[in-house]
């Protein structure tokens, strides 16, 4: 075969693949990104489905992106612009609402309006949660130490972890464990009494996961969504200018500016190996491309079971990946609107449309929505995390018109006794009916509706079973165990073959760390001579 044309080939042009490629190219590696579709971004894309209306087909908001990536990849120069959400809005189901903003004291008053008893709890709650975030955050920015290894290099990282954890206060450590193992409902009940206030705070505890707020494990999901430090404010969320697709376009420009090449409509069918080493990839059209480094930015199922022959891998690894839970339960229903919906209690303002509209009034409401999913059906009255992005970003829709992104749960990947092609519009109707309940007259505003089912998610992004995080956020699938015990440090059993998708630590969301941490692993290996970068040999971390 011919000589390698590239030092590194990254399979998959989602945000992690792009991040990874940008770092590799920045370090001097001749890097190629191969993306199956006609556009990069994967689950973070923006599409103009109707002239002038930009839809965030899948993911829609930004928070967890690690700040070092913004700086190290010089993203501001390429157009990085996160638009912080000025408000978040939570109808309480009785015609009233909670409208929260950036002013802490005014938020306390808003809570007090509903429940004087919860006003000081609000302070305590946030302080306790911030302390947990502080304690856990350093784990996000480092590859999980290999506690199973005896290699002295790995021991350094294990020692770091032990030292870090032993510095965490007793009480905070207890809270960490309560959140990582318990339910959001239990955690919130330790603070609040008002159902609407609890419902508001529970909103992020079920995103993308087959759990209800009363299920153990929902605490972990809640915590993960608070880990963002966007704008330096813990747990704050933004819309990127032009949607999350606007963000991945910025990343692509940055990667190209560092010299990475991006090839679209180039589906990879296999990673080529010689002996125990990766030597390149084969494309669907039969083309073979050579490189001593291949990085899969796909999920673990595809990385270990499809791109390579699992028979060549350790059985324990293959077992773990096969056992890994995906079970997508999320769908999107996106709307083009002729005008702004009206919430009857706030007829004359738009203030409440600045950020998330959280349609899941109480914990019980969301838990009941979850019930159906346990038995293979979608919610009759689903939980909706909505956002009218065009209120904050006028570039998303023509003047006076709007786009509304609705993230809808629960929509289990596998339906019992039917399939998603048959249920698509009926499911869309369920979501729209819930919106109609809260915003009477909503239906008359709808110019266009797009229903994105878990099957669509799988087909368009490659995320197995439509799981938005490339593997559920369950304690046995996180940190040392993500994606599989012993394989949490971005390498694979095949030399030169690496993984950098959301199925690796720390996990899904538009966060970039898998891509970045994997690039560090690759570059360390190059520097140590463990894998070759043929063109330059000058790569360093």
């Amino acid at each position: 075969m011919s000589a390698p044309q590239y030092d590194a080939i990254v399979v998959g042009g989602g945000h992690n693949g792009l991040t990874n490629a940008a770092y590799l190219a920045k370090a001097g590696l001749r890097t190629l990104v191969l993306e199956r579709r006609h556009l990069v971004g994967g689950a973070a894309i923006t599409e103009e489905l109707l002239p002038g209306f930009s839809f965030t087909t899948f993911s829609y908001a930004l928070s967890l992106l690690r700040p070092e990536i913004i700086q190290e990849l010089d993203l501001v120069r390429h157009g990085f612009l996160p638009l912080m959400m000025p408000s978040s809005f939570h109808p309480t189901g009785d015609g009233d609402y909670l409208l929260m903003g950036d002013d802490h004291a005014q938020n306390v008053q808003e809570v007090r309006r509903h429940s004087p008893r919860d006003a000081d709890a609000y302070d305590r709650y946030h302080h306790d949660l911030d302390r947990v975030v502080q304690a856990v955050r350093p784990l996000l920015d480092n590859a999980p130490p290999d506690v199973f290894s005896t290699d002295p290099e790995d021991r350094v990282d294990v020692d770091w972890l032990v030292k870090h954890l032993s510095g965490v206060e007793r009480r905070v450590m207890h809270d960490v464990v309560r959140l990582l193992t318990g339910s959001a409902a239990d955690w919130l009940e330790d603070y609040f009494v008002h159902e609407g206030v609890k419902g508001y705070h529970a909103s992020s505890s079920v995103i993308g996961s087959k759990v209800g707020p009363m299920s153990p494990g929902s605490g972990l999901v809640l915590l993960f969504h608070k880990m963002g430090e966007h704008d330096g404010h813990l747990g704050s969320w933004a819309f990127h200018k032009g949607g999350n697709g606007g963000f991945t376009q910025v990343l692509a420009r940055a990667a190209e500016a560092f010299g990475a090449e991006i090839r679209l409509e180039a589906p990879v069918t296999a990673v080529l190996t010689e002996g125990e080493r990766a030597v390149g990839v084969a494309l669907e059209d039969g083309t073979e491309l050579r490189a001593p480094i291949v990085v899969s930015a796909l999920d673990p199922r595809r990385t270990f079971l499809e791109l390579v022959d699992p028979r060549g891998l350790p059985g324990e690894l293959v077992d773990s990946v096969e056992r890994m839970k995906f079970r997508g339960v999320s769908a999107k229903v996106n709307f083009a609107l002729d005008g702004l919906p009206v919430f009857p209690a706030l007829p004359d303002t738009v203030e409440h449309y600045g950020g998330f509209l959280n349609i899941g009034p109480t914990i019980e409401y969301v838990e009941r929505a979850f019930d159906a999913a346990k038995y293979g059906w979608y919610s009759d009255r689903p939980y909706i995390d909505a956002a009218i992005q065009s209120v904050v970003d006028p570039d998303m829709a023509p003047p006076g018109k709007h786009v509304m992104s609705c993230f809808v749960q629960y929509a289990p990947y596998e339906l019992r006794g039917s399939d998603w092609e048959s249920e698509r519009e009926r499911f869309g109707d369920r979501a729209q009916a819930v919106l109609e309940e809260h915003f009477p007259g909503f239906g008359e505003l709808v110019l266009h509706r797009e229903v994105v089912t878990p099957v669509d998610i799988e087909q368009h992004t490659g995320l197995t079973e439509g799981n938005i995080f490339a593997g559920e956020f369950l304690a046995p699938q996180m940190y040392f165990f993500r994606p599989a015990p012993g394989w949490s440090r971005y390498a694979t059993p095949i030399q030169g073959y690496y993984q950098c998708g959301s199925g690796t630590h720390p996990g899904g969301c538009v966060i970039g760390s898998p891509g970045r941490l994997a690039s560090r692993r690759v570059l360390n290996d190059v520097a140590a001579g463990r894998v070759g970068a043929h063109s330059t040999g000058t790569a360093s971390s």
Partner: protein
Amino acid sequence: MIRTTPFHPRLSELNSQGLYTHWQGFLSPLRYTTAPKHEYFAVRNSVGVFDTSPLFKYRISGPDAEQLLAGLLVRDIRSCRPGRALYTLWCDDRGFVMEDGVVFRHSANDFLLTAARPNLGWLDSHRGRLRVELEDVSDDYGIVAIQGPRSRTVLSALSPETDGLGYFQHTQAKVGSTAVTLSRTGYTGDLGYELTVPADEAVAVLDAVLEAGRDHGIRPFGEEALMMLRIEAGLPLIDVDWTNSRTAWTDAQRVTPTELGMGWMLRGIDDDTRPFLGRQAIRRELAEGSSRWATVGIVVDWQHWDRLHRDAGLLPSKSEHPPPYEQMLYDAEGAPAGFVTSFLYSPVLQRHVGLARVTPALAETGTELRMEVVVNHRNTTVDVRTAPLPFFNPARKTAKP
């Protein structure tokens, strides 16, 4: 008694916070909503409106008006054609900066100068026998700034002249039936315009602007958002980033144009046909290389910042508006290197950045310095690097129409 601007009746209705500061004797909103950063984002992402009426405005006219200004302003007004405007400093005779302002040239003999402080007496004292009329027209006009990427779209719907206007150009235009001066000027470092409007028609003009901007996400912004914008844009502010030489007590408080980072204004200083105030001293400074400072940007090493706070058991603070105080800068050996005059956490850059004055030898981009910070009631230092200004400089700011 505190005064209100011509736009106040409408803008105060839009202010949900009731938070004002005082700006040269006028009520001026700190912010209109719960947090300034959303007002900031309106300017970086769509369009925002700022009431800049408290600026002093002087009409300078007559056959010798150009001559008077040429002798006072640092930049050469003779090269400014009618329909153009200049941002300029003016200095005292020792070459120390007094103030800054924008001068609009309406015709050969007719100028309008905006200034942050009163200046009529000073202008008058330099008039001598020149044939110049000086008039304080501050109260006759309101000025509203319309800034951000959508500002052109919004204003061109009202005044078609907007479309042809280049950076720092201005023209007479109409908004509805009101005659206004429309200029492509501002203090945000972004694409933007200002409307200078007769005071008694100010509200009508503002209403038309707000209406035209409604579907573009227009919103008013207050002084806190303005601070964020202008620091990112590298624009210094009087009495914050420098002290007016006229009211300074010591030379240590004073700066020269070069020291303030405005050396670019000195182009043509060797042209002997224009002996402006302070010129001799400034030429000496340039010839001898005796500038004491250079103005640079600084960017905080955020990882070090976080580590400092985390190790102290604190949440790293990232307020856009840290308490105003002049942080000292030290070089790698710990020797004094300068000081920071403005500081913020930039939501776009997601870093603390500042405007700083450092000894010229340390001005090179990327120089590693340390900035004083207080953590847990103790003084310590955080690593910073010098950076070029402005921090944020979109092509649209100066792009040809």
